């Protein structure tokens, strides 16, 4: 074979392979319907974050329920503040680490972690302990500090928020696992599952100035929804949220909530915080928009005490 022919053939072959992969869902060739979880929600109390997750995910049928072999997974914790783990402003690093480990055990090809932070992102990633924990479990910790990482998406049906710029990794990954930390919030009263998405978008100033509660609910319309929400209620900031001032703001609740329904997750979280669900305006809005069910009585909930 002439060198020229060889080059031509290999380039052609490479392109074909690339296109095939790009066309997406190479994994779908072996696709089988994922097993359905037994419960709508699992709530665990009384253990360490990692042990509670082990138990909770087991009740939901294991991580294999949500993550298929060869898939890329995005784990989105709250890393918003330049604060140490004990002060509860960010998701517990132990929990993040254990979720990543479960993803890899379920055959995930790659796991990514990022957050669009409020404080200086390098300090946040570092002092929250999440960067170190996530890297030690083999995940890729990705920056989200520059607009160049974000892409415009449309949110059809959004009342106030019809367009947003979201982090490219939300678009490039197959599975989205939302890992908020439950906290008081100065304006919306609570930040948890739905509000955690403000760390996925670039222009959250727009949300603040265009009816924050409606924007939070509107974003939940976007097609890329979390397969699983893991709510960290270990160290819960019950006042001065979402940043906190000192350890007096923290109540040691030692709990965790796992659910695929983020509106239900937020409703349960509100109860943990002792706030009436109706007071947290975006929850009833999201419920009415059909984005989830805030009536916990209608759900099949498994409660476990360790």
């Amino acid at each position, binding site marked *: 074979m002439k060198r020229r022919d060889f080059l031509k053939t290999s380039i052609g072959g490479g392109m074909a392979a690339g296109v095939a992969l790009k066309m997406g869902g190479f994994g779908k060739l072996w696709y089988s319907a994922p097993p359905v979880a037994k419960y709508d929600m699992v709530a665990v109390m009384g253990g360490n974050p990692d042990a509670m997750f082990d138990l909770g995910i087991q009740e939901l049928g294991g991580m294999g329920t949500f993550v298929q072999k060869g898939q890329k997974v995005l784990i989105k914790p709250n890393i918003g503040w330049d604060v140490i783990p004990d002060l509860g402003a960010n998701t517990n690093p132990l929990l993040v680490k254990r979720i990543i480990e479960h993803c890899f055990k379920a055959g995930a090809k*790659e796991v990514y972690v990022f957050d669009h932070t409020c404080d200086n992102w390098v300090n946040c990633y570092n002092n929250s302990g999440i960067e170190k924990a996530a890297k030690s479990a083999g995940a890729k910790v990705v920056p989200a500090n520059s607009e160049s990482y974000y892409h415009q998406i449309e949110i059809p049906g959004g009342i106030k928020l019809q367009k947003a710029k979201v982090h490219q990794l939300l678009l490039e990954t197959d599975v989205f696992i939302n890992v908020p930390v439950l906290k008081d919030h100065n304006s919306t009263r609570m930040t948890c599952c739905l509000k955690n998405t403000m760390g996925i978008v670039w222009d959250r100033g727009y949300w603040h100035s265009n009816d924050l509660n409606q924007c939070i609910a509107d974003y939940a319309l976007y097609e890329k929804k979390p397969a699983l929400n893991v709510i960290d209620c270990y160290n819960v900031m019950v006042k001065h949220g979402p940043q906190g001032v000192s350890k007096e703001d923290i109540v040691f609740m030692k709990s965790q909530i796992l659910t695929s329904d983020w509106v239900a997750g937020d409703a349960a979280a509100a109860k943990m915080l002792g706030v009436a669900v109706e007071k947290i305006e975006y929850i009833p809005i999201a419920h009415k928009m059909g984005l989830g069910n805030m009536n916990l009585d209608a759900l099949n909930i498994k409660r476990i005490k360790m």
Partner: protein
Amino acid sequence: MSSSLLRRIRIVFSTLVFIFFVLVLVDFKSLIPTNYINALMFLQFVPSVLKFYDLKVLAAGGFLVIILLTLITGRTYCSFLCPLGIGQDLNSRIGGRIKKKFRRYGFKRPFTILRYTILAITLIVTLVWGVYMITVLDPYSIFARFMTYFARPVIIMINNFLAGILGKFDIYTLSNVPVKGFPLIVYSIPVAFFILIGALSLTKGRLYCNMICPVGTFLGLISKISLFRIKFKEAACTRCGRCAVRCKSSCIDFLKFDVDITRCISCFNCIHTCQDKAISFGIVNIKKKPHVTDENKRKVIIGSLLLLFGLTRVAKGQEKTVPKPKKDSTVKENRTCPVCPPGGVSIEDFNKDCIACSLCINICPNSVLQPAYKQYGIAGIMQPVMDYHKSFCTYNCTKCTEICPTNALHPLLLEAKKLTQLGKAKFIKDNCIVKTEKTACGACSEACPTKACHMIPYEGNLVIPEVKEDICIGCGHCEFACPASPYKSIFVDGNPVHVAAKKPENVQSEIKTPVEFPF
């Protein structure tokens, strides 16, 4: 000593110094520890003088070492330690490559009146009025500004380009850093000096150092009584004139066997170039050309002008647009005083000691320090000022206070910095989204690290900000986060004198650890 070893030592040493300076000044990720930076700054003449004047401790007496060094070896500082001088040598080398003429210096008469006038005026202005002329003329500061204003954005753009490529391969070791330009007006002085010094060093060696630089002139005066000098072995000299041609300072009059010691910067090029071994450096016993314009010079000037203004354009262009709320805010922020960086103690003190070298602007991890253009008045141009529309001051950071070479920013312990009130947040209710749009916001209070800015009940389920000024530290996170536009609904008005803020009080929450699920 007549060996060319001296010159080699000079080149190696100065290259290391230069590289270190460049690294420190383009280090946009603050990777270099502050004590290394402080060690480097110890021997910078002007910063050291100012720091000594401020602190009056020997630990800040780097300039005494330099004076001693000058008494022994002449203007070694200019060749070995001054980053601007070393940078000019580099540029002269480039000039020499471009055109043969540019590397043939030859003896020229000194600009005696000009240089001593500049030195005298600088001294008088500094003693009577303040550091303002030193700010403009200190060689270290000039160099630092070149790096901050021109080199750094280029380095960041290269970083962003590489980060983009690596990102395609799923590698995130490098991250994109948004390039933020300064107000155009503050580029004027650095651009003017870049053109002046660039052109002079490209074509005429160290003419800037021997004509304008007050530090060079001052050390030249001292070196009149220095011990070691360049000297001729008259018997061995064949009067070939090579030494004069190679002398960057144009200070060797070989016909008279005379070296103008006030201009000699101890570069040792003459020793290296002398084939007769007639020149040496040792303890001493102890003395002209026309000027033509040419097209190349013009091209260089035009080229650098285009490059520099182009660069600032690019830096400007990279700034991203901020989303705007529906309605424009109406009440203008009534700023009575700019916010000066932590450790500045008072604006008056700070303005007196700062020589606008921009090291703190470089090191600030949040880029909240920006060169002032009018905030401190014309005399304070390029001095750092807190710009809370660009960014905010990180609560857990004292970087800028740790590295100030002139002690214009006093070192602050983290605990002290967290209680240093740079200014007070002022709330403008009529601009607030909660009032104008009747929707929830709370971006300011969310960002507040002390909860000086907190929310109180408003209409219905809404809450609206309120500021407790005594625990506010003026970090500006509220102002930065506020989405109101064009005027913010909360802004920090600077304190002319920094004061101690009260420590925020906090009581244990009444909510208890649950024993049962509440749902």
